């Protein structure tokens, strides 16, 4: 089948403004990933089309982009799951500066993630010759949040991010949850202090955009609500 796409293009060396370019891609099949279509365009239609990708199966977090208005990973979206009768509209992730075409500057996203101290903080030394004991139940409580691939689909879909670029955002909070709830960690309070700031957790108004955007189907708002509960009980 043939499909139509509209892709937002921008090359700072020559364009003042981003603009849409139309592509008519021939002989695709509905079991293709959207990423395969982008490769097809880059290989056979227009070598200048620029996007990031690596793993091609939804695990490295490189190819978040806006597809028909929603943030998606191009490699985890099959054509059969898109209405290909209509033109497919592809834009870069919102709320981050565009470097070129679908490539955005992720530095602020990674900075927010570093701010919440994404590593184990401990005072008690671990046992010298074996692992720390943790029940499987406790371990599994971390798995959903640890699944995050840092693709930024959530944070850039969040209305609070759009109105305040300093807002810490769902991905960083999810990572905070991952460590705060680790039975091995002793840095919970430090992180809660970081979340309890003007650009922190209280800017989340539970609008759920983030959950809808998350390609790993992480229940982000549930995790955020647990953090809010922890903070509220701490203040009491």
């Amino acid at each position: 089948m043939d499909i139509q796409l509209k892709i937002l293009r921008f090359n700072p060396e020559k364009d003042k403004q981003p603009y849409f370019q139309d592509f008519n891609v021939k002989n695709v099949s509905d079991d293709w990933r959207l990423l395969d279509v982008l490769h097809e365009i880059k290989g056979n239609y227009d070598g200048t089309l620029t996007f990031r990708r690596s793993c091609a199966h939804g695990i490295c977090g490189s190819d978040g982009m806006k597809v028909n208005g929603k943030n998606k990973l191009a490699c985890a979206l099959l054509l059969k799951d898109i209405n290909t009768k209509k033109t497919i509209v592809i834009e870069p992730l919102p709320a981050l500066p565009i470097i070129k075409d679908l490539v955005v500057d992720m530095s602020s996203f990674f900075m927010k993630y570093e701010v919440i101290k994404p590593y184990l903080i401990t005072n008690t030394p671990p046992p010298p010759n074996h692992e720390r004991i943790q029940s499987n139940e406790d371990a599994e409580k971390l798995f959903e949040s640890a699944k995050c691939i840092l693709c930024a689909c959530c944070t850039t879909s969040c209305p609070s991010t759009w109105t305040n670029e300093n807002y810490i955002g769902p991905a960083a909070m999810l990572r905070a949850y991952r460590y705060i709830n680790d039975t091995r960690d002793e840095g919970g309070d430090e992180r809660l202090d970081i979340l309890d700031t003007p650009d922190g957790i209280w800017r989340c108004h539970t609008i759920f955009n983030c959950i809808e955007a998350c390609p790993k189907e992480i229940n982000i708002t549930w995790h955020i609500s647990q953090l809010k509960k922890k903070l509220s009980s701490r203040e009491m």
Partner: protein
Amino acid sequence: MIKTYDVVIVGAGGAGLRAAVEIPKEYSCAVISKVYPPRSHTGTAQGGVCAALSNMEEDSWENHAFDTVKGSDYLGDQDSIEVMCRDAIRAIIELEHMGMPFSRNDKGLIAQRFFGGHTKPEDKNDPYGKRVPVKRSCYSADRTGHVMLQTLFENSIKNQVTFYSEYFVTDLLVENGVCKGVVAFDIANSEVQIFQAKAVLFATGGYGRVFRITSNAHAGTGDGSSLVYNAGLPLEDMEFFQFHPTGLWKLGILVSEAARGEGGILKNKDGERFMARYAPSVMDLAPRDMVSRAIITEIREGRGIRGSDGTDYVLLDLTHLGKEVIDEKLPEITGFARTYLGVEPTTEPIPIQPTAHYAMGGIPTNTDCEVLLNEKGDTVKGLYAAGECACVSVHGANRLGTNSLLDLVVFGRRGGKAIAEFLKTAAFSDISEKADEKTRELIDRLLTSAGNERAVSIRTELQNNMMEDCGVFRSEAGLKKMIVKLEELKERYKNISIQDKSRVFNTELVEAIELNNLLNNAEATLYGAYNRTESRGAHSREDYPKRDDQDWMKHSFAFKKDSGAPEIKYKPVVITRYQPMERKY
């Protein structure tokens, strides 16, 4: 411009990051990566990382070492294997202490599961008697690599490691056996940068993208091995490339061996559990080379299933495991089957085919990760390598599942330690302001070339033909045909041009350079395969079906020549305690 660091680490996967964490604070250290560190390929590893922790049942590092030697089809260097298996237990505990989240057993210890080729003697008093599978693979559901990479990345943040993310390394500066640094460009603006360093560690990963069907990421283009090869240094055992038996049909996306470790069964079109014929004692848990050959044999003999596109597959059946086990232990990979093939693994078997997976060969090193200058064992001063790009030869002719993640943390750390030791007395070597000229010329040439070849067509032809003629089974005729093809592609490469002429985030430029690296890796692989007239581990010659210990208990070292075939020299295999035996399972 020249930037100066005591240490430069190229690659931010498991090996590079583990090394970075080991560099003492008093030394300046930069980690360069062409993708953001957490996007590195280590993150895709699923099944596990092994160590004889004995958390589920009694086990020992010696059992692990024996399995690794046997799995390697006796090509692995036994001194390196001993180093790795002895250190495994400490290395896994250390990961746990760093914060890696593991699945746990009912005592709250790290959980372990079965994996192909991991066994122990049925009777402890008869160490070389009948062997049975053992639970040795430590895991975190089926996201082991993902959480390992994240833990190491986060520990690097804690240690304030300096990252150059989305910088592409294009040149290795070695002169007279001394390494002086590397040259890289910033992908965002194509600015070229010389990195002068006392020590450089390569941890650039594998080159699975040489093949059409592969589990490897697009970034798996063997850049490090190619740069080393271009610098006149040898590549070791490149003919040994592992095909993993269970890639999703048509796509090559990996379905981890953990699926069989948890009890999954391979079936042919008659519903027969065919592995019972090839490996009666361990069946579906036989090592990868054997299972991949069994699958291709089933298909060739007409017992595969013909798919809509005319290619064949066999089935991986998980349905009897039940939804609960599947959802708890294999959530990610069963998700891939649903998303990409529309198959529901709890009720339907998954169509699979062998997929190019892992490079056993690579940059030769000793157990301190020092890169070898030649087959005699002399080393390049200041140059180190670790992880999949390296060949310390723990995997020999065939890697056992879960031994790569282990290799990353054991040898990443050893590399870091060796560098720290070296830095105590090392000095900077003089470096010319013009050391970046080659890279500048390369970029300028590619940006202005008016040639009539496109990278994409050369790459596709390379991948299709390598898959056909240098894949699971090889023969002189096929390899000769492929050599002619490769030489043609190398010629055509000289004439490539790219459409994107911009200096901003030019991924077409990056891909063109990567293609040259693929061609280099293919060259060493192909000529190595042609040269080695025996079958051993993953290298299976139909015209020489037997292992030949008389003539081939040796590593190949390929040195690049100005054109055509590399020169191949040999280094003996290190044997400490295990004499070669027939490899049966």
